[in-house]
């Protein structure tokens, strides 16, 4: 029974280069049936495709409909469940872009600042902590590691009230600091864990060789480990991007001045100010706000899939 896992590469074995599709399992599986089964197999596969196309269509339909609706005149949105466009109506985009106090680009810029700060913070602080947990022996290691794992499961709400009091007393309400500083302090423990797992997969001989050459820990970390953990850093970057871009709760609490709004709070202000009168421009700005996430999804898929398969972050 114990041989089972050894015959197959475990998904958490994150050795450098594991991202390359060297271990193609489907091929093995396809060869399972013999030729005699091929016809039933083919009809089975056909049925599966039919189910998946219908299910996938249902999943994506609301999103496509939103895209199409953002290009329709307002009156049509409430009468057209279909995806056909008779004419392209860009008015929703120009209207929505300037519907709030600032042009929508202002809020995108605010979001971009918070996102970039958060990414930088997570990359630096989480990789440092991960190096210590994965490679160094120190007093209290097991205890700290256990605490770190527990903080992953801690609900945000238990700390938000005092955190708010703390930041409001420093005078940080309506600044981006409350959204960025926690990331500089590695509070997204998920990424620490992800990186620890990754570093464990890097052969120890590499840092031992560097140590023999006289390198200290800072040098080993910067010159040996960091370059090898690029896939883990990429996963962290992508998930931090998406989470921070979508973060509503934090921004809702800390950013009450419209000048400082990030995209989610700006969208919410849009809903409040226009209610049900201009779904078209509301959808248009929703599309604009989803676009960066969609682009990150498009280009970072490989890392997204790997990250979620191994640690469960989404």
């Amino acid at each position: 029974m114990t041989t089972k896992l050894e015959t197959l590469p475990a998904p958490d074995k994150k050795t450098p280069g594991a991202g390359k599709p060297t271990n193609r399992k489907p091929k093995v599986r396809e060869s399972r049936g013999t030729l005699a089964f091929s016809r039933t197999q083919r009809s089975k596969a056909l049925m599966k495709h039919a189910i998946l196309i219908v299910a996938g269509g249902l999943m994506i339909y609301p999103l496509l409909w939103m895209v199409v609706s953002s290009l329709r005149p307002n009156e049509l949105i409430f009468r057209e469940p279909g995806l056909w466009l008779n004419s392209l109506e860009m008015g929703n985009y120009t209207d929505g872009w300037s519907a709030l106090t600032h042009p929508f680009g202002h809020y995108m810029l605010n979001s971009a600042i918070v996102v970039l700060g958060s990414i930088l913070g997570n990359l630096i602080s989480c990789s440092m902590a991960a190096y210590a947990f994965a490679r160094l022996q120190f007093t209290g290691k097991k205890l700290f590691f256990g605490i770190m794992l527990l903080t992953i499961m801690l609900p945000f709400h238990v700390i938000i009230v005092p955190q708010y009091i703390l930041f409001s007393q420093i005078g940080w309400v309506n600044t981006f600091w409350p959204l960025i500083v926690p990331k500089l302090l590695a509070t997204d423990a998920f990424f620490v864990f992800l990186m620890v797992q990754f570093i464990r997969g890097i052969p120890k001989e590499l840092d031992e060789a560097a140590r023999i050459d006289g390198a200290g820990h800072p040098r080993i970390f910067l010159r040996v480990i960091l370059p090898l953990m690029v896939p883990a850093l990429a996963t962290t970057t992508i998930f931090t991007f998406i989470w921070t871009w979508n973060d509503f709760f934090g921004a809702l609490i800390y950013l009450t001045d419209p000048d400082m709004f990030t995209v989610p709070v700006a969208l919410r202000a849009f809903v409040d100010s226009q209610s049900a009168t201009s779904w078209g421009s509301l959808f248009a700005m929703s599309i604009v706000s989803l676009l960066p996430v969609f682009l990150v999804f498009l280009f970072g898929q490989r890392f997204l899939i790997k990250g979620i398969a191994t640690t469960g972050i989404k």
Partner: protein
Amino acid sequence: MSAISELSSISRRKGKATAEEKKANGRDNKAAYIFLLPWLVGLVAITIGPMLMSLYLSFTDYNLLQPPEWTGLDNFTRMLSDARLHNSLRVTFTYVFVGVPLQLAVALLIALVLDKGLRGLPFYRSVFYLPSLLGGSVAVAILWKQIFGTTGLVNQVLAMFGVQGPGWISDPSTALGSIILLHVWTFGAPMIIFLAGLRQIPVMYYEAAKVDGASTLQQFRRITMPMLSPIIFFNLVLQIIGSFQSFTQAFIVSGGNGGPSDSTMFFTLYLYQKGFGQFDMGYASAMAWFLLVIIGVFTAINFIASKYWVFYDD
């Protein structure tokens, strides 16, 4: 593989750890603590400090303006007779107990269909995964509000069949259901974890079962389910913890007030209203600790129950 299995194995390894630590004691302490510095500062200042502070505040009356006033167990006895809080608990429990199993069942079903070397897997996987990434955003919550509005997409489709649909979101009996559906719609993340788990089950098990004449259903029950049980457990724990903390969707769909007639008043939404709407920080802190206890109890129950149904190969 995961933070969860890691946690349970730490407690198992306790005895060995102390011996290991004695040997290595003091070797890298200085370097380790320097690498851990950001994380340690964050742990104290952003996590443990605020936790203790919120524990203290939960025994006080505090509105940010006057200093906290010790009121003992008042907040907790108030919670006992707070009908809106009881309702918010009922809403949240319904959401968790209906939404999580439904979402995981769909995720497992689609993962099973996608497994076994189907052509076009990356494409399908992307289609099913995309909503997971967008689902937490304000934009999609806005979309949902329209889809299930009185003149929304769902009712437009129903009208084509001559059915007059209800005002899903404005009707207390269907509003929560619409938000649960939004949660189910984001099944892509657990689906990818299931897919990774299914890939780990050795093909030879199925081959042996086939030789013995086992039906597809028998193979599923005797091989897939036991082998996948750690992954199911992992998804279950993560989803329950996450779902108890849901906020954005309910906030946007209900316009921030948990309506209609409190039918979408999630626990976290009520907490937000108490803390950041009415600045009743003491009560909000008590609620936050109550949430922590609920999540802790459910996680503990999950771990205890897992002994009876989760199958570990080693």
